[in-house]
C-alpha cells in the first residue's frame, strides 16, 4: 500500500541523461526534441554542472511576437544559442528526495520533468512518465487489503 513512500528520486530517474551545451544552436536542440521526444533538455558545462534547462516551451518562447521586429526572423532565431533561450536558474532536485515529494513538486510547478543534481553535477532527469512507472510498480505487486466497509 505505501511502498511508494519508500522510493527516492534516484530509484525512478533516468541516470546520466543526454544534455546539451549552452553554445549549441536552437536548431540542434530542435533536432534533439524531435529525435528523442524529450520535453526538456538539461544544459550543462564541460564538467556537467547544470547551468540551465531548455524546455519545448522555452524554445517556443524564442519565436513569440515581440517588440523588436514586426515579424519574428524565424531562420535567424534557429541559429541563436541555447543559452539565449534556456531557463538559467532551473529548479532541480536531489537524488535522495522522496519520490512522493517530487510528485508534489511536478504537479505544483506544472513542469513535465526536473533535472536531478548532486554536488552541482547533473546525475539524472525525472519526468512524469518515470513517476507514473514508479506508481505502477509500487501498487501492482501487492494485493490491496480489503478495508472495513468495502463491499467486496
Amino acid at each position, binding site marked *: 500500500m505505501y511502498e511508494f513512500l519508500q522510493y527516492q528520486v534516484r530509484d525512478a530517474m533516468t541516470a546520466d541523461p543526454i544534455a546539451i551545451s549552452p553554445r549549441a544552436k536552437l536548431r540542434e536542440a530542435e533536432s534533439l526534441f524531435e529525435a528523442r521526444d524529450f520535453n526538456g533538455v538539461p544544459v550543462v558545462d564541460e564538467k556537467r554542472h547544470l547551468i540551465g534547462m531548455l524546455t519545448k516551451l522555452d524554445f517556443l518562447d524564442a519565436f513569440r*511576437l*515581440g*517588440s*523588436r*521586429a*514586426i515579424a519574428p526572423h524565424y531562420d535567424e532565431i534557429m541559429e541563436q544559442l541555447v543559452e539565449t533561450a534556456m531557463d538559467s536558474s532551473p529548479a532541480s532536485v536531489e537524488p535522495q528526495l522522496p519520490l512522493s515529494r517530487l510528485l508534489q513538486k511536478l504537479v505544483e510547478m506544472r513542469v513535465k520533468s526536473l533535472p536531478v543534481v548532486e554536488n552541482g553535477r547533473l546525475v539524472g532527469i525525472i519526468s512524469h512518465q518515470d513517476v507514473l512507472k514508479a506508481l505502477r510498480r509500487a501498487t501492482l505487486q501487492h494485493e490491496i487489503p480489503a478495508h472495513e466497509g468495502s463491499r467486496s
Partner: protein
Amino acid sequence: MTTLLYTHPICQEHDTGYGHPECAARLTAILGALKTAPFAALEWREAPSATVEQLTRIHTPAHVERTLARIPKHGYHAIDGDTIVSPHSGEAALRAAGAVCAAVDAILRGEADNAFCAVRPPGHHAEPNQAMGFCLFDNAAIGAAHARAAHGLERVAVIDFDVHHGNGTQTAFEHDPAYLYISTHQAYIYPGTGRRDERGVGNIVNVPLLANSGSTDLRQAWARDIEPALRQFKPQFILISAGFDAHRMDPLAELDFTEDDYRWLTERIAAIATEFCRGRIASVLEGGYNLPALAASAVAHVKALMAATSGLAKPDPEDANGRAP
C-alpha cells in the same frame, strides 16, 4: 456623393522577397474584392507620385534622399530585418504617399466625400528620419500635413486602428496641437511604443489593448477614449491609418476584431466626420497579413465609407452605445 479609390500598379511591384508578409498579394486580394458589383460606384483614380515638398513636411530631406538612394537596381536591400526594398520600391513609396495627398486635394476641392488609398508600402512606422517596420514614408502623416499646408486647415485628426502602434505618426505630430493622433493597438508587441501616458502636447491618444481584446473592448475604447477626444478636437479633416491586422485571424498579432468590427468602427468615424467636417475622410491601407481576412475587412471598411456618402447609413443610435453585436 462619391468615394474615391486611389491605387497604382507599381504598388504591386514593390517586391519584399519570398514569403514576406507585406506582399503584393495583399493588394491583389483587396483590389480583386473591390472590382466586384457592389463597388461599381467606386471611382478609381491613379495615384500620382508625392513631391519632395510633400514628403519633407514630415521627413527630413536626408531621410528622403537616403531612402531613395538605397533602392537597388537589382535584387533586394534590407533597410532593417523587417524592411526590404527592391527596384520598384521607391516609386511605389512615392505613389503611396502621393495617393493620400491627391485624395486630400480631391476631397477638399469637393470632388468626393471620402477616399480609400489601396497602396503599399505602408507608412505609419516610418519615423521622420528612419524607415522601419515595412514602412518608408509615413503616408497618413504626409496627407495630414498636406491638408494643413496646401489647404490651410487648422485641425486635422489621424485615427490609426492598425494593430501596431504608429510610432512614426506619433513622432511627427507629438509637438503640434494642430494634429490629433489616436491609435488603438496591441500592447507589448512591435514597435513597443504607444503607452497610454505618451500624450504629446495633449494631442496624442494611445489606447493600448491587451492580447485577445475584441469587439467589446473596441467599443469601450471608442466610447471612453476615441469619441470624446474627437468631439473635443472638432476635426476639419480625418485621415485613417487603416491596418486590418487586429483581425482575429491575423498571423502577426493577437487581437480579436472581426470584419464587422471594421464596418462598425468606420461608421462611427464617418458619423463624426459628417458632424464636424462634411464627411471628409481619407483612409490609407497600413497592415493586414491574412489575405482573406484582409480582403473581407477592407471590403467592410470601404462599404461603410461608400454608405456614408449616400447618407443611407444613418448609424443605428443603439449600435453606437458600445454594445457588441
